[in-house]
């Protein structure tokens, strides 16, 4: 579905953020991208929708070669890729509904968007999705009045409003508490599965990545150093990705797999996060 071939990004400062990265994400697969800060995770997903221009290499989504497109065609292609951000990146001064409808900007003309005259079907879909994530009672609240978890749910709905084939998710839980993090991850996975979307999720938290993703790719200094199933994560693999550290507490044990959100589990999760750091 998504094919990345020989992707390289060198910033004008000379930093080589991505070094000849090749990767294929099949339809419907949820892939976690892990790696230390500065490994190039954010650059990688931004090169996919060309918010960052890659220096060389190819990105192909379905039949479309993204890296070849001109301005207009690129905007068309971006509609097929929903993006979810670390600090939510909502338009703070606009309402929840306006933020959600901004996911349709690629589909409506300028004046319609200026006067907020979105097609009724779009507004209906917005209500349906907001109801799905439990925010249908907050449509006219301003985005800056929401809590972190609520904001991220608005961010998810905005991405889904694009009716995408692929989700690009950049550290969705980095600003959230452990319990909300799990709820948000679960929501993203559920919605991706319901709609058969592929997803690339950048994530710091190794435990969360193991718990929710079907495949884990480890990036270090702009190169892929691991690509495999969550079960294959061993202390050796983590050392390969992050460097030397005591990883024995970080690897998921089988009994944790059944854990659900709730008071005591959230606390143990929190403790594990602390232990991981």
């Amino acid at each position, binding site marked *: 579905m998504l094919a990345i071939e020989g992707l390289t990004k060198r910033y004008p400062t000379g930093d080589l953020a991505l070094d000849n990265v090749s990767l294929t994400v099949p339809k419907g697969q949820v892939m976690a991208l892990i790696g230390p800060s500065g490994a190039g995770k954010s650059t990688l997903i931004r090169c996919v929708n060309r918010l960052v221009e890659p220096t060389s290499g190819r990105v192909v989504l379905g039949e479309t070669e993204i890296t070849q497109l001109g301005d207009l065609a690129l905007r068309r292609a971006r509609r097929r890729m929903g993006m979810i951000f670390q600090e939510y990146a909502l338009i703070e*001064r606009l309402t929840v509904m306006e933020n959600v409808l901004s996911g349709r*900007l690629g589909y409506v003309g300028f004046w319609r968007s200026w006067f907020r005259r979105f097609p009724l079907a779009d507004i209906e879909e917005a209500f349906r999705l907001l109801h799905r994530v439990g925010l249908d009672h907050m449509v006219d609240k301003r985005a800056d009045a929401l809590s972190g978890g609520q904001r991220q749910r608005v961010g998810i709905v905005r991405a889904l409003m*694009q009716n995408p084939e692929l989700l690009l998710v950049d550290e969705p839980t980095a600003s959230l508490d452990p319990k909300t993090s799990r709820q948000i991850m679960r929501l993203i996975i559920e919605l991706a599965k319901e709609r058969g979307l592929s997803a690339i999720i950048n994530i710091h938290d190794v435990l969360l990545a193991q718990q929710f993703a079907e495949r884990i790719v480890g990036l270090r200094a702009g190169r892929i150093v691991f690509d495999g199933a969550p079960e294959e994560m061993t202390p050796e693999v983590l050392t390969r990705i992050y460097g030397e550290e005591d990883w024995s507490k970080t690897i998921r044990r089988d009994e944790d797999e059944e854990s659900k959100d709730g008071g005591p589990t959230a606390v143990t999760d929190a403790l594990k996060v602390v232990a991981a750091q």
Partner: protein
Amino acid sequence: MTTAALSFDARAAARAWRPPPLIESVWLRYTVYLGALLYLVVGLGSVEVNWVRAAEGLERGARFLAAFFPPDFVTHWFDIQEGILESLTMTVVSTVFGVILSVPFALGAARNIAPLPIYLFCRSVIAISRTFQEVIIAILFVAMFGFGPLAGMITLAFATIGFLGKLLAEDIEDIDPSQAEAVRATGASWFQLLAWGIQPQVLPRFIGLTAYRFDINFRESAVLGLVGAGGIGDTLNSSLDRYEFGTSAAILLIIIAIVLACEYASGWIRRAVQ
């Protein structure tokens, strides 16, 4: 804790620690301090004050001020009214046109959205507008368009471009880039990026600056009359020329009242749009 941590003497380190000075280098620091002191001494020494002349002048000044009382609203009320209306018209028209024209210049002068050639062009226009004081620009426009409020209005509109263009451009450069990035990621066009990614973030400041500029334009319109660019300044100038200080006082009081009203209103507007 290991033994290495125990042998570390935190107390001695705490005693030795000093807050960082404003200027790192000792040599430079004392040069600057000494230079400033020397300049102050030399500066004060070079001021020549003729105390006798000042004492005489105080009395003359007092007589000048006394001539303003009582303010005379009645004798030239018609002229005053006309001048005030002309000033308000100049203010409104120049603010509206100036604000409309300043938006494209502000967009062009924001480095994060404009390409370099456009950026340099817009920054130069803004710099020219800000370099010259309104009175100097007014003299030019009076020479071009003749005496009267038209020259004044063009002057104020031009000055508004410099003021609003610069401050708005800086606000656009300070936006949260992630919001704009999120809008771009949806496949939005460039104009949609402006309307959704940038406008909501800068709107409160834009409105506040507009209200503030309205206030400035009214005050300036009173000054521009002195060089023949119309408005209440013209009326004030001719009353001073004719030694009708009562009328001048009345005009000044009205200007003060209107400026206070503008200031109060713009303060209220800025609070309301936050």
